[in-house]
């Protein structure tokens, strides 16, 4: 026999049973992206018009490598969660929804891995 009240069982849970976690992580990655995206734009202002040696030196530098990896992690996480939110709100066909959610998750992981490998390769001077 469960002595917990119905309210205590559902408190903090949506129909998906983990909505708070999604909400919280979306906000956390958003906060991280405030300084990281400003840093990225500031860097791109300088680097985007420069030659290859400058761009390579930027990406290989300790700050360049560190902040770009952090940006990629936060941006792919935030983007994947944000897109998921849009899809569950507007795609009502169950199989379309499932396929979109899978594609979003997989492409976010693939993008993050691709970018991080590129940055690590650069910063380790491969």
């Amino acid at each position, binding site marked *: 026999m469960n002595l917990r009240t119905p309210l205590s069982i559902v408190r903090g849970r949506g129909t998906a049973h983990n909505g708070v976690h999604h909400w919280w992580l979306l*906000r956390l990655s*958003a*906060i991280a*992206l*405030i300084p990281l*995206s*400003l840093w990225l*734009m500031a860097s*791109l*202002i*300088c*680097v*985007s*018009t*420069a*030659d*290859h*040696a*400058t*761009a*390579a030196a*930027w*990406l290989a530098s300790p700050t360049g490598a560190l902040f*770009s990896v952090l940006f*990629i992690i936060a*941006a*792919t996480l935030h*983007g*994947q969660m*944000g*897109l998921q939110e*849009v899809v569950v*709100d507007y795609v*009502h066909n169950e199989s379309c929804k499932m396929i979109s959610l899978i594609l979003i998750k997989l492409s*976010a992981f693939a*993008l993050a891995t*691709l*970018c991080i490998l*590129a*940055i690590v*390769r*650069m910063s380790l001077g491969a």
Partner: protein
Amino acid sequence: MTTRERPLSPHLELYVIQKPQFTMALSMTHRITGVLLFFGLIVIAWWLLAIVAGPEAYAGAQGVLGSWFGRLILLGWSFCLFYHLCNGIRHLIWDTGRGMEIRQIECSGIAVLIVSIGLTLLTWILAYASRGGPA
């Protein structure tokens, strides 16, 4: 068991029957810019890989991104980033329960538009000013 067709959130049909609202347009723009920015990550990945691949690949990528069409797309993307950033901060403030009055929401919406357009212009002015100069 029969289930009735219930409207699912967000209740877009509520808004469609009313006149278009400024705040609604801003909210939609937030989501649209967010989706576009995700696709921007693909271009960032491509550009990073071009740096790794070497000067030739980098020159190729720079050629595409530096063309007038590439620059137009990048202008759009930079606005998307600044808009989503500013409006995201607005959302984070709402999450603390502040600024929820209709008048405040409209004022912050206008502020988001002005600041994001301003930051976009500033970015491009600085980028053009630093062109060819030291990084």
